[in-house]
């Protein structure tokens, strides 16, 4: 049996089936949504074990809320991203012991960031670069440029205005490009033709 046999069904319809006891719907939702929340958590936290905890917690909240879910009111993936974003924020706050608003502007890229580059290392460099961004910028950049979400949806997830999302992603991308600039040659992106 394919893992997601409900390819034509929307997430909220699947959730309704799940709450009615459909086990295939449980598998389909897991297949669809878990990689997205896990991927986001990994990028934000930079730690696979913690990302698993966050993704598992987020999915558990989805299973719990399923019986009360109102069809058509909110997008399941948007709700789940919001939960994931908040769980990541909580983890980062606990780790740092400072508030989100107290995070400084992007740090200068450390030599360790710019020195750890090659083919596989490009992703590691990106990850390291992302970690230099303030948490909100990081979340916005990941949602926009890696998860591929639109600004209005990101605005709902982060509970800010669309203009604020645009500002966050623009500043984040600029800071990230600056952080990775010294590494361009090693990354293999020195050619202008890219």
């Amino acid at each position, binding site marked *: 049996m394919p893992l997601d046999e409900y390819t034509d069904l929307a997430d909220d319809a699947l959730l309704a089936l799940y709450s009615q006891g459909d086990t295939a719907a*449980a598998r389909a939702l*897991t297949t669809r949504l878990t990689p997205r929340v896990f991927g986001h958590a990994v990028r934000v936290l930079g730690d696979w074990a913690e990302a698993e905890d966050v993704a598992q917690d987020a999915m558990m909240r989805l299973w719990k809320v399923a019986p009360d879910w109102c069809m058509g009111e909110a997008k399941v993936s948007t709700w789940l991203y919001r939960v994931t974003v908040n769980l990541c924020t909580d983890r980062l706050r606990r780790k740092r012991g400072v508030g989100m608003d107290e995070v400084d502007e992007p740090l200068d890229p450390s030599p360790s960031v710019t020195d750890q580059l090659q083919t596989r290392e*490009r992703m590691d460099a990106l990850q390291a670069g992302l970690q230099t961004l303030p948490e909100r910028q990081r979340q916005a950049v990941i949602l926009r440029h890696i998860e591929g979400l639109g600004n209005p949806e990101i605005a709902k997830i982060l509970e800010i205005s669309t203009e604020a999302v645009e500002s966050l992603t623009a500043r984040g991308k600029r800071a990230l490009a600056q952080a990775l600039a010294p590494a361009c040659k090693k990354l293999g992106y020195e050619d202008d033709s890219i």
Partner: protein
Amino acid sequence: MTASDKDTVDRDMNALDALFVEAVNDASTQPSESFMARVVTDALARQSMPKIAPPSLWVQITAMVGGWQGMGGLVAATCAGFWIGINPPEGLPTQLETFLGSETSVSLLEDGIEDTGIFGFGWDMEEG
């Protein structure tokens, strides 16, 4: 910003866009099979849990007045009050007067005005 600086910025941005494209397809940020299995296990475990139906309106009202005992007392008090209202015990008015000290009466007409059959501020209300 010089033309050279602008070229550098453009190159950095292009490099970053290319990195993002790679990151979208980066398999290393995919969850492991064992983790996916754990999530499915959670989902099925939650699904098999007995569903707790929300309490009915009647149950909620009963709970508000203190459960069945409270509801019983409320019904008894209501019945007693109703019965006293339609069939007061013999001695009740006398005892009330004793308690209040005197009989109280209120006259709606000014003293000295007799019932002449003319009311309504001097208008003759009699028919015919």
